[in-house]
C-alpha cells in the first residue's frame, strides 16, 4: 500500500496560520496604520505589496537556479533538487505576477498609465515570461531525466535576468524610481510605520512561500508516482496486446 501523503502536517498547519495572520497584518499596516508618503501621498500603499512580492520572487527564482545547478552536477544529482526547483519557480511566478499587477495599479495612480515599456518594467515582464517558459518545459511529456535537464538549463538562463531586472534602474534612465528601500550604503531609506509595513509584507510573503514550497513538493512527489504508474500500466497494456496478437511468447 502506498504511503498516503496528507495535505498538511502540524508544522505546515502552524506555518499556514502564521502566513494568514501575517498577510492580514500586512493589509492593516499597509492600508490603515502607515502614514501617507510626503511625495506620493496615499499612492505609496500598493508598494507594501509590490516590493516584497519581487523580493520573494527573486528568492524563489534564485532557489530554483541553485537547485538546478545541484541537479546538473553529477555528484549532487538527486530528484529532490529537480522537484524543489520546479516548486520554487512555480511560486516565484505567482509572486512575480503579483509584483507586475500591483505595479501596474501603482503606475496608474502615479504615472497615469498602467504600463510603460521602460527598462525595469520590460525586464520584470521578461523574467515572468522566461519562468513561464520554464514551467512549460517542465510539462513536456518526454523522458523525466531529459526533461529535468532541459528545465535546469532553462532555469539558469531565466535566472540570469534577475541582476538585469534589479540594476535596470541604475544602468538605464527609467521612468521607474531607483532603489528606494535600501540605499547603496546598505542603510534603510524608510523608517517607522512605513518600514514596519514593508517588513511585515516581506515576512508574510516569505511565510507563504515556505508553506507553498512544502505543499508543491508534496504534489510533485505524488505527480511522479502517478506518472510512473501510468507508464507501467501502458507497458503492461502493450505487452498484453502483443501477447494477444501472438508476437510475444
Amino acid at each position, binding site marked *: 500500500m*502506498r504511503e*498516503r*501523503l496528507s*495535505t498538511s502536517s502540524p508544522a505546515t498547519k502552524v506555518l*499556514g496560520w502564521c502566513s494568514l495572520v501575517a*498577510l492580514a497584518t500586512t*493589509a492593516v499596516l*499597509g*492600508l490603515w496604520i502607515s502614514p501617507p508618503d510626503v511625495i506620493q501621498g*496615499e*499612492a505609496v*500603499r*500598493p508598494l507594501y*505589496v*509590490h516590493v516584497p*512580492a519581487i523580493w520573494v520572487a527573486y528568492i524563489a527564482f534564485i532557489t530554483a537556479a541553485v537547485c538546478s545547478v545541484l541537479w546538473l552536477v553529477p555528484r549532487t544529482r538527486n530528484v529532490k533538487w529537480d522537484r524543489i526547483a520546479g516548486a520554487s519557480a512555480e*511560486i516565484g511566478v*505567482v509572486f512575480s*505576477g*503579483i509584483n507586475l*499587477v*500591483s505595479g501596474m*495599479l*501603482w503606475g*496608474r*495612480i502615479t504615472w497615469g498609465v498602467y504600463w510603460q515599456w521602460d527598462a525595469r518594467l520590460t525586464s520584470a515582464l521578461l523574467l515572468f515570461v522566461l519562468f513561464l517558459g520554464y514551467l512549460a518545459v517542465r510539462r513536456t511529456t518526454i523522458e523525466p531525466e531529459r526533461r529535468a535537464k532541459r528545465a535546469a538549463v532553462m532555469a539558469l538562463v531565466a535566472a540570469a535576468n534577475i541582476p538585469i531586472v534589479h540594476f535596470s534602474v541604475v544602468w538605464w534612465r527609467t521612468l521607474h524610481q531607483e532603489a528606494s528601500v535600501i540605499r547603496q550604503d546598505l542603510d534603510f531609506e524608510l523608517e517607522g510605520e512605513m518600514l514596519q509595513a514593508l517588513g511585515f509584507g516581506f515576512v508574510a510573503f516569505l511565510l*507563504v512561500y515556505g*508553506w*507553498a514550497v512544502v*505543499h*508543491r513538493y*508534496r*504534489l510533485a512527489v*505524488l*505527480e511522479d*508516482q*502517478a506518472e510512473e*504508474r501510468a507508464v507501467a500500466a501502458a507497458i503492461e497494456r502493450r505487452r498484453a496486446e502483443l501477447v494477444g496478437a501472438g508476437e510475444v511468447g
Partner: protein
Amino acid sequence: MDDAGFIFGAYAVAGGALIAYAWSLVSRIRRTSDELDGGGEQSWT
C-alpha cells in the same frame, strides 16, 4: 475608478492570487492522492 480602488485592488489581487494558489495546491494534492489510491474511480455498485 478612484485612487482608493487601485490601492485596495493591489491588495485584493495579491491576497486573492495567494489564496487561490494555496487552494489549488491543496486540491491538486487531494485529487492526485485519491487517483493513486483508486479513489478517482466511481461506480454505482
